[in-house]
């Protein structure tokens, strides 16, 4: 665990870091239904607060510039790239990570992923699943075009795309039938 409270906050020591790391702020974060007090710089990306401070390592680092989607979480139910989201902008919002998507790990998207053996290396899949779950919240019966639009920002180097498409359709069916667990 990191305690930033004792760290120096002299901007003069941080030449070249105009916005970064001007010292720690205490913030309240609501993650997966639990409140956490964190003491981190306001512009530290949410991704690293989740991973390094709260120990929630299910959310992945892939690119650090919102190019790959491995870090996708929900902010008030909507998909967000946590690698470029300053933690200060997540405070006061409902944050959901892959660990909190479903208490039993049996969200329709997770069940569909398992049914169709989508995963390969698995590194991108928390992000894929969070993006798919957010899509289904907005569009319960998505077309292929809807899926392309919602998930093309999530890269997979193992090439699971075809099964992802099929699994999103299956998840929509499971959700429609109310088969949550």
């Amino acid at each position, binding site marked *: 665990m990191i305690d930033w409270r004792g760290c120096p906050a002299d901007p003069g020591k941080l030449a070249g870091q105009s916005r970064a790391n001007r010292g720690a702020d205490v913030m309240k974060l609501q993650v997966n239904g639990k409140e956490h007090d964190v003491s981190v710089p306001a512009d530290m990306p949410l991704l690293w607060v989740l991973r390094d401070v709260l120990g929630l390592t299910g959310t*992945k680092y892939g690119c650090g510039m919102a190019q790959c989607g491995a870090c996708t979480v929900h902010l008030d139910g909507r998909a967000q790239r946590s690698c470029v989201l300053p933690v200060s902008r997540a405070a006061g919002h409902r944050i959901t990570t892959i660990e909190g998507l479903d208490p039993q790990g049996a969200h329709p998207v997770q069940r569909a992923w398992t049914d169709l053996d989508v995963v390969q290396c698995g590194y991108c899949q928390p992000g894929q699943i969070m993006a798919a779950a957010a899509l289904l919240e907005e569009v319960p019966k998505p077309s292929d075009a809807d899926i392309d639009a919602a998930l093309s920002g999530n890269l997979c180097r193992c090439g699971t795309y075809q099964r992802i498409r099929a699994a999103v359709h299956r998840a929509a069916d499971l959700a429609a039938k109310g088969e949550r667990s």
Partner: protein
Amino acid sequence: MSAAGLSRRTFLATSAAAGGGLLIGLSLPDGLKRLFAQEAAPAAPRPVPNAFIRIAPDDTVTILLKHSEMGQGVSTSLPMVIAEELECDWSKVRFEHAPANIVYAHTVFRAQMTGGSTSTWESFDQLRAAGAAAREMLIAAAAKQWEVPVGECRAENGFVIHGERRLRFGELAAAAEKLPVPAAPKLKDPKDWKILGRPTHRLDSAVKVTGKAEFGMDVRRPGMLTALVARSPWFGGKVKRFDAGKAKAVPGVVDVIQIPSGVAVVAESFWSARLGRNALEVDWDPGSMAGHSTAAQLEDFRKRVQTDGPVAASKGDFAAAFGKAAKKVEAVYEVPYLAHAMMEPLNCTAEVKAGSCEIWTGTQFQTGDQAAAAKIAGVKPEQVKVNTLFLGGGFGRRANPRSDFVSEAVHLAKATGRPVKVVWTREDDTRGGYYRPMWVSRVRAGLDGDGKPVAWAHTIVGQSILAGSPFASMIKNGIDETSVEGAADAPYIESIPDHRVELHSPESPIPVLWWRSVGHSHTAFVVESFVDELAHAAGKDPVDFRRELLPPDSRRRRVLDKAAEAFGWGKPLPAGHAAGIAVHESFGSVVAQAAEVSVDNGRIRVHRVVCAVDCGPVVNPDGVEAQMQSGIVYGLSAALYGEITFRDGQVEQSNYHDYPVLRLNEMPHVAVHIANSDEKMGGVGEPGTPPIAPAVANAVFALTGKRLRQLPLRLT
């Protein structure tokens, strides 16, 4: 082929010398792998059930994986092999990565490693024997307890049964463990298989859909620090001086430490380390890469490819036959350096204590990394505990004979006395080297009056992966087999009486490594594109032309025919669409792919791919299908986008915005047809990659009349 003279004994001797204590070389050229596999096969491996199988009192069966799970599905397929013989309850099967230990060495390569699309076939007999031995020990334990003859008992679905009596495996495990291991356990008749050959759900889904799967990147140790390393922007460059002052002033930065690969900023978290490294000031001596450009290097390769080089394959008199040919075709093909770009950037965590060292990482090469860590930590290899985590993709990058990403972590753990995780950013990973080499190929062929090829020459220019590595002694007479695999043994040249394949291996400070399908990643593009050119020059259909060159009963021809038939080759396609095809053998398997493409505003769109594969006996058909889809996507990313280039000696690309890979909206529909053949078992991790680039390029030619001879494929 020039490889034929190298015996297995010679190989073991040379690689033992070259590897400095390592038992064996890692990168066997594909042809050699098959050669050794055939030689190695007859000796039945000694069953070692205790190394692979743990049975708990609650009947849970834990299989220890000798190979690393990097997406290819070994955490399901290897347990399937054991469970089939063990007769356990499949629903009770779990898995763990094995520790580093010689008992888990590759049966052909003699080192613990994952690569070369070998995991299933190299361990198949060994794991079957382990499962069968354990089954016989459980039966013997039950028979002893019941005081009945062993022959009256049988095992089924996790029980040993005698008449009406039954005992659970969990009840028998402790007693069974104390019994002698049978030397030659009886294997099941394949007709009685209940698990092997059936589509089977992955065992790693549950942890991977819930975020619980632990990758190297996710390792957390008490008191752990995180380090980012500033490495030279020029390969081979050196630190002239550095000023740690500003980096150390960043909150959370603990230390700044110079290590052989650069200057490390060690901090309490990734974010602090990153800010610290941004603030770090380093002056570099660029070394020999200063001023290097891809354009100039390509010009040099283009000159070399016109000259004679060491001969990789030769028969008859090419020059004479080519001179007399009725029609001559000549072309130059070029493919760039490529990064592996796994989703999980490289990382390793290490801890060094007096007399011991422990590492946590996703690696494809436990034996090599263990030896490298031991040398740095000043301990014996067996004092290094290797914890293999899930790999967020490997594709060859995580099997580095130089153990680059592991070494840095051990240096820093030793220097700080604390556990240190070294994380590569995406930019570090893209710019950090160990690329698929850049290749230039010149091919010439002569056709007779009937359009039949009578002369063929192929000259290849590109860096050797083995040169300068611990396995350099594998290069024989100037030929690194990994540079010419798929070209020196191209199927078409067998029927061409006068042919010649030559290789130039220029040196460069740019580090190169195997990249999914290794040499085949360039040779398949060249050979299958050029054969397509010859078909058009002969005025023949590309499938018919290939069929005429391949023996009627050959595996390649059967696979080609299957892909063509399933695709509907020759049938009309939608307006603006065209088809291309390619067939290629690699890693003991033959794959043919037919692609349907269109061009939209100069952009190539791949709509549909039909893939036929003959990999011999199939363990998990669902896994084979996934690996074909995976290989196609990986190959398409390279065919359409992949390119690492240099300017002023530095890599120009950095992240997914300028090193793009295929996205979901570009995914073609892929149909996979798996032969149920009795050929020798081959691999599936890599063979799906080589054919897709030529299949797409051939389709683009059919559509536009433009022959694209460079990757990535560009129409504008």
